[in-house]
């Protein structure tokens, strides 16, 4: 049995230990904010936090989350929205929005570590996350707005 936490709640898992975390949170917990995009860690739509680090849930087998604290988009906000989420809304980042849970989780991990990232650091942190609608320049603007405390 694998024990871990998702958004602060204790969970246990006894199924196929190779099952990626993505399908556990989506199909078994029914938390669908974390998206399936590629299944190969190529697009970032499935990004969640494991012990504060952004990871790709689509290639994270359940056996590797034993003892871990997982946070999904559903658990990112506390009493109020995370500064990155506020900035996303202020800048009107999403178009279709499908990738945005992953984008926000990736950006939040960056923000939590580095309050004022440079353009280069933003590019580096965010280039693993694909947005097919092409919202990149608003994502960059939102990260900066969050960094500057404008959101």
């Amino acid at each position, binding site marked *: 049995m694998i024990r871990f936490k998702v958004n602060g709640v204790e969970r246990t898992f006894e*199924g*196929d230990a190779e*099952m*990626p975390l993505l*399908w556990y949170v*989506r*199909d*078994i917990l*029914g*938390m*669908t*904010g*974390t*998206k*399936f*995009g*590629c*299944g*190969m860690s*190529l*697009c970032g*739509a499935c990004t969640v936090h494991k012990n504060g680090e952004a990871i790709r849930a689509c290639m994270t087998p359940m056996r590797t989350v034993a003892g871990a604290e997982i946070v*999904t*988009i*559903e658990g*990112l*906000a506390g009493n109020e*929205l995370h500064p990155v*989420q506020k900035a*996303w*809304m202020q800048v*009107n*980042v*999403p*178009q*279709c*929005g*499908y*990738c*945005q*849970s992953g984008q*926000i989780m990736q950006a939040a991990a960056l923000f939590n570590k580095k309050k004022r990232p440079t353009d280069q650091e*933003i*590019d*580096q942190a*965010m*280039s*693993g*996350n*694909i*947005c*097919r*609608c*092409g*919202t*990149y*320049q*608003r*994502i*960059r603007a939102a990260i900066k707005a969050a960094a500057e405390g404008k959101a």
Partner: protein
Amino acid sequence: MSTIENVSRRGFLKGALASGAFIIGLQYLPKIVRAEGAVAGTGISDTVFRPDLFVGIQTNGTVYIIAHRSEMGTGIRTTLPLILADELDADWARVEVEQAIGDTRYGSQDTDGSHSVRDFFDVMRQAGATARLMLTQAAAAQWNVPVAECFANLHTIVHRPTGRKAGYGDLALAASKLPVPKKEELQFKPKSAWRYIGKGAPSVDLKDLCTGKAVFGMDARMDGMLYASIEHPPVLGGKVKSVDDKEALKVMGVQQTVALDPFKPPHAFQPLGGIAVIANNTWAAFQGREKLKIEWDDGANAAYNSDQYKKQLQETARKPGKVARNAGDVDAAFAKAGKIIEADYYVPHLAHASMEPPVALADVRGDKVTVWTATQNPQAVQSEISRALGIPKENVICNVTLLGGGFGRKSKPDYAVEAAILSKQVGRPVKVVWRREDDIQFDYFHSVAAMYMKAALDDKGRPTAWLQRSVFPTISSTFAPDQTYGAPFELAMGWTDVPFEIANLRVENGPATAHVRIGWLRSVSNIYHAFAVSSFVDELAKAAGRDSLEYLLEVIGQPRHIDLKAIGYPNYGGAPDAYPIDTGRLRRVTEMAAEKAGWGKRKLGKGAGLGISVHRSFLTYVATVVEVEVDDKGKVRIPRVETVVDAGMVVNPDITRAQFEGAAVFGTSIARTGEITATNGRIDQSNFHDYRVARMNDAPVQTNVTIVDSSAPPGGVGEPGVPPFVPALCNAIFAATGKRVRELPLSRNKLAV
């Protein structure tokens, strides 16, 4: 009972009825409401225009507006209701948007072709004006005063002489008992009184999208549902010869496999056939698929090889084709010309690769079907499932979720049909999930195309004759496999409407046979046509030793309307009088984009360059200047893009700007790495490692979008940004490096200087 998680407010209308709310044209409300009340399937008509389909008001004052077109990121779920709310003079903060199910009474719901605002601007206004008039009449009756003394003011009816007021909620019940007024009785707000049109509003889904609560097709759930993943025949038209599913069935969670019949030609919107693995979670279904042992009978399309096919297309493009438009005598002009310029251009197949792969959930109960899916075309979901299961299409309830991108792929409902067939087979709700590999390999691909261009220049470098010929497998082949020539609607996209003032001009098209499914992709044939036309005119400018901008404007010629009635130009369905091909508008966006980009006024460094292109598509005029920097290894950076858009009247400016910012990124993907190829009928690419799309670090750094202030009728905004971007980029690369890109993608070109 079926439940869809996170779909809040779904039951509002039932609640509204219980509390005696005002709902105009009750019988025309979405069927889902009546389905819950078990009176579904009555009184279906094909009436297209029913403004009263779209709005309802609760006694608490909440205004419900129906969004009947699909939301895939263009903001249409916000923009159309905003028009109605404006005309109703509703307080936008008190408006709830409800997504329509598939129903022909809404008119077309096929959300493609960038025409939602164009086609429904007036419809939305009429619906809003109708409701406003009925509320006004109800207030007047209540106060026993003339209707003319009453007016609407932000969710309230006011009696002008006394200042008496009543809220929309308070008037809802009385208004619901009044007859629906005729269109002739309606009075529309003057433009000066518009609250929302032209100012816009953020997406109604914004917060849900930023908190993971928004429901896409991928997120639809029903109690007791099973998950399916399907191994399709790797070659179009292929069939299963034999299957061994023993190992697949041993996978934990896998319940059964189901063989799906191959399609009967034409393939149209039918499923491809294959073997489905049914499991109790998505992962198990995927794992089961890995263990299937299938032998395929590939059929004739196994002979499809892209290298060879490309040569065929290019050879065909060098031979005389079918003439689609002709002016003057091109051959005579070529015969006496001094300088002849020729060029061949090539654009490969492209895949849509929306972030959400095709996905659908269906529940078949007897002869009734409930579907939840990410579709651009819910009525096609109804009709195709109806055909596949042999039931009336009214028995198919198609609920439309948000779409995780569409770009034209999700107009085709093949995946929803798969879900319905499988649900019927296994007796439970089934959710079909396509993997990324399925999405890329079994797409309705954007057509591969070869273009041949030829021009004669006079001694001043001006073109005296212009010949253009395109060859591509047509979208029509989807419905009629023996179709080889481009359909009129494809040739009308940036080809027959070439807007240049050249005395001798001939537009041709040659034949090509399709070997994969061909479909519409964001801006469709405009992509390859604009690439050839806008690149070639830049080549001519250089050959003439002229500035690209100045030459382009000269070739466009003086402001005029180009009359293509003689060739039956379809004009994207727009009336030629309301939507002429106006070279004045083309010139204006071109001049503005050049101005914004500092064309001719800036000193650019080594390896840097500007390129320009202008293109009219979907009745909208777009000029784009791309700035590039190419380093000595041939790496291309795009620091800045200036796009100027004349889309007529624009309802939602910020969302419109976002569409053109996105189009520059979409165009970057096409230009840099967009390439789908086939070997022995099988698609070579499979996921984002070999079908690469633009990421933050290779997308344009800054795209500035300027919207021309216009009172012309609205054009499209979702697609028209794509066509000019690619040639503007390639023209910029020429300016920076002297290397002409005639073949996409850039990854096939050596750009190192």
